[in-house]
């Protein structure tokens, strides 16, 4: 052992810088794992520490209607405190910004909510002013900045002018980044809401009652009692425990995803290490042979290099974990406004140990694979390598065992990270397939370069191409590292482009791109005139009647929801909105599994005489008109809903149309193109039955540009303050906003993979430098100029860079197509410019790194180089 340690130390003297460089390949992967793991622990503790602040109350009861008198009496009898809120979307106008408008989330608040956590505004006394009542508002800080509105200036909701008393930064349990992007919040006093006249005409009002319970009252008990007593009110409940669970689940998913991205970097780095060690071992064979001649056993010789490999792993793991901790300090501010709570930095040692340990194990396993060759070096090599026979030639059991260990370690890590056997195995398989494709392509390239060697090309081109297949070529390693990095980054870019293009396309070609809703019966004609006057006539409009399902195929909804089978399937606590849980299953009347949301949701249906341009009949017969008094009305259902509910043509559905029962049967099924910004519906009734029901309208127009859109919106909001508008540009802005926030984090992590790729590239070029130094020096001695040597390298790296870009880009295109087809259900975009730019960038990085790393060899006298490098 003494000899092994001594020899390992002495032998490493000339190669320490190289070994450190090898270990750098895994540093970023380990850093990513440590950073994510430790951050996860930070988030977990933050959730625990600020648990009550996540909700702002002990219990929140939500519903489409205000609490009934009985329910109010029940909660008041509990003691404690009660606050309430009415929220809906509406248009806010900014008189100080030329009357421009923006869709906002209006919240009329009463009471001392939040009871726990931070309600942060600038200035800090704004909440007190809001509670005092009057025509005052606290508005999302980003919105005020966008429209250049200061505290003290006015904004308009409906017909009422509100003085801005503060900029909203934080409300308990809400992520300011996401809410501000989707619908910026505007808080107004409850008592002033009536004056705006908005809530009365809005069909999408959401009521929330926030409770602060006496110290000994358990929120879950109150929830259970209310659920039982007020079932008919369709209430949803949110407790601190539930919020913690949900938040924890979301953060776990994010942590797992980022962990996998980090793991890809580690895996790539480990392959880089294995490749570098392979070359290193090849160079050490003469030394090993001499040691064997002098009497070293196979165990001793292997031990010398195993110690070096383990030291390399320890070094990489330690530097990686230190870097991970530095990254972790940087992550919370980056995630800052995405998280609904504050994160305090601390070092989570168990997480650090896990990340470091996983990195170390993977690194050592990958190092072992090439190191095993040391055991088989024959001492005869010292005499004459040509005569050397492999000692114990035949299948190496240890090599097979380590291969199995590596696969098991990768699968084990993936399963641990994803928390699911199936997902972990799928990830391992995808990783294997990705690497297989890249590795296979590399082999193909080597083969093709030899098969179709450009014999008539200039010497430097022939040399460069020959480098692709000659012994110790770097084709596989470089294609793997660069190709994988390109693949990850490009997939992200392509997905983003595809989504944005899709939205853009949906509003192109003269299609509507500005949607108005909450239009009342008495407003539709006036609105049509107003938009036409602004040069944007209404292209499509549709009446909306709200209704709920009461029975399905003769079985009452209540009965279906109470089904014992359904209870087994359903989580204990439904979401506040009820309709937000499309995965919950119920057993339908026919015994089929039925998602609960399909029964509980409030349907906003329309009636018309024909299909529109965004619809296609899939089956049945569309009935456009029925005579009054029809006992069972034939309706048309959207294809997805029809399938989810497990219905057949002719099945009966009974509705509660705002108090009036109505029997219907499924007459036809339609495929709907939801992505178009036009009024689309799950359920379409024929003309002749719903005309008398209370209804609102939705109307779509086309604005030529942003300025035109703003002008039309201004005119509509001025004439019809309760009408809400959605601009396609706003949708795009929202999607892009969310994407850029999330993408930033993903890109940051994918950056680790790309950087690892560059380090692996530098390592590969450097190991190649050691491999090829004699050849380069020989060429130099025989009269090759520096220019020729650079050109040879340029040809090799340019081919590898371009190929990596092509293969990585091809995989990204395939990945994007699969995501588009199976996840987003849209047509994938192929931005040729972006692809070309990426190909150029990857090629440039490869060539520049290759040439820079090889610089020393080409511009120094041969003898000097040989003396330094050997």
């Amino acid at each position, binding site marked *: 052992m003494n*000899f092994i340690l001594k020899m390992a130390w002495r032998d490493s003297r000339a190669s320490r810088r190289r070994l450190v460089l090898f270990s750098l390949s895994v540093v970023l992967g380990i850093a990513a794992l440590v950073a994510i793991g430790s951050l996860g622990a930070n988030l977990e503790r933050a959730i625990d520490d600020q648990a009550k602040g996540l909700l702002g109350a002990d219990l929140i009861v939500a519903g489409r209607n205000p609490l009934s008198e009985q329910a109010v009496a029940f909660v008041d009898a509990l003691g404690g405190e009660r606050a309430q809120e009415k929220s809906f979307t509406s248009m806010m106008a900014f008189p100080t910004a030329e009357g421009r408008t923006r869709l906002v989330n209006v919240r009329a608040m009463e009471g001392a909510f939040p009871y726990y956590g931070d309600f942060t505004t600038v200035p800090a006394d704004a909440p007190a002013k809001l509670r005092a009542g009057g025509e005052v508002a606290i508005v999302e800080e980003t919105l005020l900045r966008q429209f250049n509105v200061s505290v003290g200036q006015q904004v308009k909701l409906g017909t009422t002018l509100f003085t801005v008393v503060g900029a909203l930064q934080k409300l308990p349990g809400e992520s300011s980044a996401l809410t501000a992007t989707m619908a910026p919040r505007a808080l107004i006093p409850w008592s002033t809401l009536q004056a705006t006249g908005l809530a009365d005409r809005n069909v999408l009002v959401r009521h929330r009652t926030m409770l602060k319970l006496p110290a000994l009252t358990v929120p879950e008990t109150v929830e259970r009692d209310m659920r039982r007593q007020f079932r008919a009110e369709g209430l949803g409940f949110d407790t601190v425990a539930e919020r913690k669970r949900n938040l924890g689940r979301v953060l776990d998913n994010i942590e797992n995803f980022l962990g996998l991205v980090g793991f890809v970097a580690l895996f790539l780095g480990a392959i880089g290490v294995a490749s570098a060690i392979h070359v290193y071992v090849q160079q050490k064979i003469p*030394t090993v042979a001499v040691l064997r001649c*002098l009497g070293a056993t196979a165990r001793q010789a292997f031990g010398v290099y195993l110690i070096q490999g383990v030291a390399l792993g320890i070094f990489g793991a330690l530097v990686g974990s230190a870097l991970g901790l530095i990254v972790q300090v940087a992550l919370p501010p980056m995630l800052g406004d995405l998280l609904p709570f504050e994160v305090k930095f601390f070092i989570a040692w168990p997480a650090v140990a896990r990340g470091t340990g996983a990195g170390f194990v993977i690194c050592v396993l990958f190092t072992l694979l090439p190191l095993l060759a040391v055991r088989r070096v024959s001492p005869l090599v*010292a005499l004459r390598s040509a005569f050397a026979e492999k*000692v114990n030639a035949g299948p190496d059991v240890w090599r097979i065992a380590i291969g199995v260990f590596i696969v098991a370690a990768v699968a084990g890590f993936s399963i641990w990270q994803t928390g699911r056997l199936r997902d972990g195995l799928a990830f391992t398989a995808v990783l294997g397939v990705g690497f297989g494709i890249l590795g296979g392509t590399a082999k193909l390239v080597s083969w093709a370069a030899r098969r179709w060697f450009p014999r008539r090309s200039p010497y430097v081109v022939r040399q460069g191409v020959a480098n692709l297949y000659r012994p110790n070529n770097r084709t596989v390693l470089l294609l793997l590292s660069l190709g994988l990095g390109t693949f990850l980054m490009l997939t992200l870019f392509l997905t983003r482009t595809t989504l944005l293009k899709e939205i853009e396309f949906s509003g192109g070609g003269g299609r509507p791109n500005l949607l108005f809703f909450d239009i009342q019966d008495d407003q539709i004609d006036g609105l049509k005139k107003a938009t036409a006057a602004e040069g944007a006539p209404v292209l499509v409009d549709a009446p909306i009647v709200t209704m709920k399902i009461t029975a399905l195929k003769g079985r009452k909804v209540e009965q279906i929801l109470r089904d014992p089978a359904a209870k087994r399937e359903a989580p204990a606590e439904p979401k506040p909105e009820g309709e937000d849980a499309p995965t919950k299953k119920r057993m339908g009347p026919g015994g089929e599994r039925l998602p609960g949301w399909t029964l509980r949701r409030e349907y906003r249906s329309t009636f018309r005489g024909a299909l529109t341009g965004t619809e296609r009949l899939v089956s049945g017969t569309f009935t456009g008109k029925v005579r009054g008094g029809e006992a069972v009305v034939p309706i048309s259902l959207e294809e997805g809903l029809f399938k989810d509910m497990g219905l057949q043509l002719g099945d009966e559905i009974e509705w509660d149309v705002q108090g009036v029962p109505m029997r219907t049967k499924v007459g036809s099924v339609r495929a709907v193109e939801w992505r178009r910004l036009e009024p689309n519906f799950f359920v379409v009734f024929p003309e002749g039955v719903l005309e008398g029901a209370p209804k609102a309208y939705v109307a779509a127009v086309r604005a030529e540009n942003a300025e035109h859109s703003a002008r039309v919106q201004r005119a509509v909001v001025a004439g019809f303050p309760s009408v809400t508008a959605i601009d396609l540009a706003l949708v795009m802005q929202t999607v892009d906003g969310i994407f850029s926030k999330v993408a930033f984090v993903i890109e940051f992590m994918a950056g680790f993979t790309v950087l690892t790729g560059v380090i692996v590239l530098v390592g590969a070029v450097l190991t190649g430098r050691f491999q090829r130094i004699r050849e380069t020096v020989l060429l130099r001695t025989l009269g090759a100029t520096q220019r020729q040597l650079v050109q040879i390298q340029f040809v090799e790296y340019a081919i590898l860079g371009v190929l990596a870009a092509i293969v990585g880009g091809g995989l990204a295109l395939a990945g994007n197509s699969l995501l588009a087809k199976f996840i987003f259900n849209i047509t994938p975009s192929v931005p040729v410019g972006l692809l070309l730019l990426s190909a150029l960038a990857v090629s440039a990085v490869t060539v520049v790194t290759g040439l820079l790393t090889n610089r020393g060899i080409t511009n120094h006298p041969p003898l000097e180089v040989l003396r330094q490098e050997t």
Partner: protein
Amino acid sequence: MLKVERLTKTYATAGGPLTVLREVNFELLRGASMAIVGPSGSGKTTLLGLCAGLDRPSGGDVVLAGESIGAMNEDQRALVRNRHVGFVFQNFQLVPTLTAQENVMVPVELRDEGGAAAEARALELLTRVGLGARADHYPVQLSGGEQQRVALARAFMNEPKILFCDEPTGNLDGDTAHAMVELIFGLNHEKQTTLVLVTHDLELAKKCQRVIRLKSGAVISDETA
């Protein structure tokens, strides 16, 4: 000290089995010296490798210092080499990452017998070959002749019973080669080490007590001076 009986070596090649050494027999006593000569490809190096336990014979046996090594596995032969054998190679074969003194110490350090005594002995051997002042130099900082002298010092570090030399002067100029030969034979007499050397140099071969001539893997002459 060294007994070779019906030693045969055959390699499997694409064109069928290739016998590079056939039915070689000889025996050497302690302190004796023998040269193996012959044209390129005659099997000299193969014979040396088999005698030193660097390879396994396809037939026959080698008894080295009383131990039959033909049937030993690689690690067992390594231990025999470490205890009884010293090597000098044509291309010196120093470990490039070790200093001259560290190179010399390797055979004893492999037995975990390093330490101050080993360092002193290594320095003494280096001084004996005229390199006492260069103990801290790396191979790359030494000339070919100096490297070969370090290799010789290393070969005597474990006080071997038998020294194998493969073209020990093949890469050296005339004067350096002469000095090297003097050292090899001087130490051979002084330590009573058995010497087996492979060479093309007939003058060098004549300095040995016995000369075996090989051709196509077979002994064609065995002369004793």
